[in-house]
């Protein structure tokens, strides 16, 4: 059962402060309204995982691990591999996270990352089929929020993509109906590279990539994604509140520009094997 989050008692004072700074084009941490926090990406840090990445944006920190198995395809897509995204908001990341199975926020994060990868057309799942209707690669993308200082959405997608791009997938062959490792490895090819940007609206203004103090007092927030061609790939309004329709054009423009900035940074750090364009 979904529950409304509690409002902080200091929220109103903080909101006024953040809003007044925003009117002057400033933020509490010295950034401009359209500035992302500094970002770092480390990949391949875990030996037991088939792929891994640690990404931080400011002090929000996300760890993603990839595990690959062989399993049965879905009956309606017999010639396609499978991937699933899970996300956990670990209790060590924030006092607002509690132990236990993923709550609605964790589920929302997982589904937004999943949609960004799936609808963004990142992977060609047909290439992950071993025997049609019988055996396909199953990729588990598990996202853990380690430190929560606002906006876990954007770094979560970055870390999932970095882990996927650098994953060494064990190659299997099917012998007498049983999957066996060949001892070889292969890299996943990307058909597209979408990223998201979190938008926080206060009054008639908006900022991007909020840190926690800002996130707590936003009137409303949105996650919006775009790919390298400038297509919008994912949208999720993820908090109560109203988004003024008049702001949407400027938001879309900002998202296309800022996802481009993330993409350039990403490609500096992470080797991406691009699929041949059809």
């Amino acid at each position, binding site marked *: 059962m979904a529950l409304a989050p509690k409002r902080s008692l200091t929220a109103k004072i903080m909101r006024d402060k953040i809003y007044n700074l925003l009117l002057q084009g400033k933020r509490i941490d010295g950034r401009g309204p359209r500035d992302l926090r500094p970002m770092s990406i480390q990949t391949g840090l875990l030996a037991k995982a088939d792929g891994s990445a640690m990404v931080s944006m400011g002090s929000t920190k996300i760890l993603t691990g990839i595990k690959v198995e062989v399993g049965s395809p879905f009956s309606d897509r017999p010639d396609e591999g499978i991937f699933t995204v899970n996300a956990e908001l670990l209790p060590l990341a924030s006092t607002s996270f509690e132990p236990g199975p993923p709550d609605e*926020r964790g589920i929302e994060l997982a589904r937004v990352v999943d949609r960004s990868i799936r*609808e963004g057309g990142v992977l060609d799942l047909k290439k992950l089929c071993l025997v049609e209707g019988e055996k396909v690669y199953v990729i588990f993308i598990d996202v853990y929020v380690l430190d929560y200082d606002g906006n876990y959405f954007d770094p979560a997608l970055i870390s999932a993509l970095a882990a996927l791009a650098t994953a060494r997938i064990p190659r299997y062959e099917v012998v007498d109906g049983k999957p066996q490792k060949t001892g070889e490895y292969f890299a996943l090819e990307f058909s597209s590279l979408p990223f998201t940007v979190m938008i926080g609206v206060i009054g008639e203004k908006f900022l991007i990539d909020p840190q926690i103090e800002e996130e707590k007092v936003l009137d409303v927030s949105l996650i919006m994604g775009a790919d390298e061609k400038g297509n919008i790939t994912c*949208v*999720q*309004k993820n908090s109560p509140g*109203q988004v*003024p329709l008049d702001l949407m054009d400027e938001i879309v423009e900002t998202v296309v520009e800022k996802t481009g900035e993330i993409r350039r940074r990403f490609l500096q750090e992470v080797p991406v094997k691009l699929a041949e364009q059809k």
Partner: protein
Amino acid sequence: MEKPERLIDENGRRVDGRRFDELRPIKMEIGILDKSDGSAYVEFGGTKVIAAVFGPREAHPRHLALPDRAILNCRYHMTSFSVEERKPLGMTRREVELSKVIREALETVTFLEEFPRASIDVYIEVIQADGGTRTTGLTAASLALADAGIPMADLVAAVAVGKVDGQLVLDLCDVEDKYGEADMPVAMAPRFNSIVLLQLNGRMTPEEFRKGLALAQKGVSEIYRLQREALKKKFSSVPPMES
């Protein structure tokens, strides 16, 4: 369900004969359940949804109660027989997520400050799914809240727009959702010219996104008109109180 050869024919008609900007036949009924404080039934073509509201009532468990306002609980749920392949009982991850975004849309327009320490519980049951269940559910929930007499700044009206065969269309049915290129559920508070729910599955150019929002706005204003009509119909027929 087979993929049709084309989702839009040479005359610009969709699989069910609609034009790109046409809504499905809509039915709305208020106060269909007896035991809840407010209820509504809404039908968009083959999508059929019941919503009911309990409250404001004492919050349970009590430690969840807030000193300054009511909590709004929301459960969006599909019956096991609402879809082609039987849906397992219990809440799927999709239902948990949709409950969250629907609750956030309703919270936005409800005066929760009027009822400190109370809870308002919204239950949405999809009894038949043919595309647009979250938007139909939200439209019904908003009517059920109004039926329960809960003060609201506005009704919420919702509809999905999508892209099928490269063209923007209003109010996707299941086939269009499944085989189309994009599905964008939108809910608005028309009085405030604002968006209260927005999701996008699929890809659109910024231009299509902009046009899609405008198309949604057109659908929303029609749904909003029908909502007010349905409410008036119920409450104008209430017999006057005896003195």
